[in-house]
């Protein structure tokens, strides 16, 4: 029972993150943001800082739901403005280096083994309550994204992805729209990070490494770009495979588990590109 609870909670939290990555960041702006996990990280680490370093009380810790999204949206704003002229592969390199930078910065702040003993907020002390809050956020995110897809903004973003020049000649402010989508997706990602920190009451650095970033990115492509079903399937996949490998290799070494995980995911990615170039549920080619 406990096992199912933990898997379901992780699945919900990763779904929120993957929706923000797959449906908003990659899906709308067309930026291949591998380093999007840094916003997830910021959410978790800010919660850790407030709780472990500043000793926020159980009721004050609710402030993290404002502070962490605020910080990550400021960072997202700076990033999007400074990288606005980079597209495609070049943006991917910058994105990867940002993910590494975040990892190093967080290791500096939290130490090599991350924060542990993060306070859960008052009223959310049990696992079930964390799960229910996550489900609320999960449903809100899905409603938002579904509305977004029917919204006139969606076609503005499709044209911008196809050709920025054409979008500009239609009077669309490309830079502003990109900044908006960066900020929006970073806020959602940081909320999933906060939930993760509260759930695991710590920030395990292994869950935020570049390795993980690449795996999550690849999984969202396998699921299908800009498809909610695809993001959910990707989250299920991620949680299950990580759990299976962790339990298989728990006696041996953690390092083997992550290495084999990337091997498995790499194999899946190759097969997916060969046989399902649109992803499982996506309409768009990779």
């Amino acid at each position: 029972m406990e096992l199912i609870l933990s898997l379901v909670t992780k699945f919900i939290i990763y779904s929120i993150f993957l929706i923000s990555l797959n449906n908003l960041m990659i899906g709308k702006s067309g930026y291949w943001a591998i380093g999007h996990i840094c916003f997830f990280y910021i959410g978790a680490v800010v919660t850790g800082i407030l709780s472990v370093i500043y000793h926020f009380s159980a009721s004050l810790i609710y402030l993290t739901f404002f502070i962490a999204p605020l910080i990550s949206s400021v960072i997202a704003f700076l990033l999007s403005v400074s990288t606005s002229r980079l597209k495609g592969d070049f943006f991917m390199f910058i994105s990867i280096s940002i993910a590494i930078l975040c990892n190093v910065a967080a290791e500096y702040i939290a130490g090599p083994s991350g924060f542990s003993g993060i306070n859960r907020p008052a009223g959310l002390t049990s696992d079930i309550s964390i799960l229910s809050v996550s489900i609320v956020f999960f449903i809100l995110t899905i409603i938002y994204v579904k509305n977004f897809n029917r919204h006139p903004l969606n076609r503005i973003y499709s044209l911008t992805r196809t050709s920025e020049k054409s979008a500009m000649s239609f009077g669309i402010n490309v830079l502003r729209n990109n900044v908006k989508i960066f900020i929006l997706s970073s806020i959602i990602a940081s909320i999933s990070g906060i939930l993760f920190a509260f759930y695991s009451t710590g920030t395990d650095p292994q869950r935020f490494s570049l390795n993980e970033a690449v795996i999550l990115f690849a999984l969202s492509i396998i699921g299908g770009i800009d498809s909610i079903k695809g993001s959910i399937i990707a989250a299920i996949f991620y949680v299950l495979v990580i759990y299976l490998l962790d339990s298989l290799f728990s006696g041996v070494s953690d390092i083997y588990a992550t290495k084999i995980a990337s091997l498995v995911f790499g194999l899946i990615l190759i097969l997916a590109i060969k046989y399902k170039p649109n992803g499982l549920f996506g309409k768009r080619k990779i």
Partner: protein
Amino acid sequence: MKEIITLSPGFSFSYSGRENYIIQIPKESEPMTIEYGKIYGIQGPNGSGKTTLLNVLNGFLRPTEGYITYYNTKTFNISKRSFKENVTVIKVANFLDGVRRLFQVPILADDISVLDSMLLVKRNKLDERFWNSFNPQKLILRLINRAKESDTEEAKALLKEFNFNDPSVSNSTLSYGQRRLITVLQMIFSDATLLLMDEPFANIHDDYVKKIKILLKLYIKGRNRSIVIIEHDNNNMKDFVDIIWTLIDTNITVKENG
């Protein structure tokens, strides 16, 4: 005020490193203007800079010498290329419902429907507010789409006239000619003051060309609008255009049609 855009005497443009390939207006001649209610045609051999001239009018390129005036405001006066300036230039040149551009190669987003790409040209500032997408669907639609309902009907009618019977079909299923046709229809459907069209009649069936000409004439009739087209076919030029700009030997010459 009759002019939308004025190119000053002495205006010239050349790509860096290719100083002998330039387009220019002689210093002693009259300024070249785009006035309301007229259709302008750009003529010239291949490589004479027709598309480049459109890009300059569109604000994508800045003149090497001289200046362009939009609505009597001097927007830019060349030389230093700072990013900020570049952005403002594009903003001024493409003010909402100001200028719409038809590119030579049709640019359509593949993952939206034909109807959506038609509605894309008539933009409402409210469309770009993010909080709109947080509200329940019906509420927003009632708020912002009250005017849009008639737009949708209008777009469907226009599409039907050109045999697009199913407007919900995706752009990715269209042929090259159909894509061109859709981009031309986008121009007709828009509310823009100035249409810059790069070969609007190429790759389009003759019957449709006739229809499009009539619709474009209607587009500017009695309204503060004008059109600039690039066209190779002299027959199309003769019966459609009011003023012809000819690009020969790097100079632009202006001539009334007829």
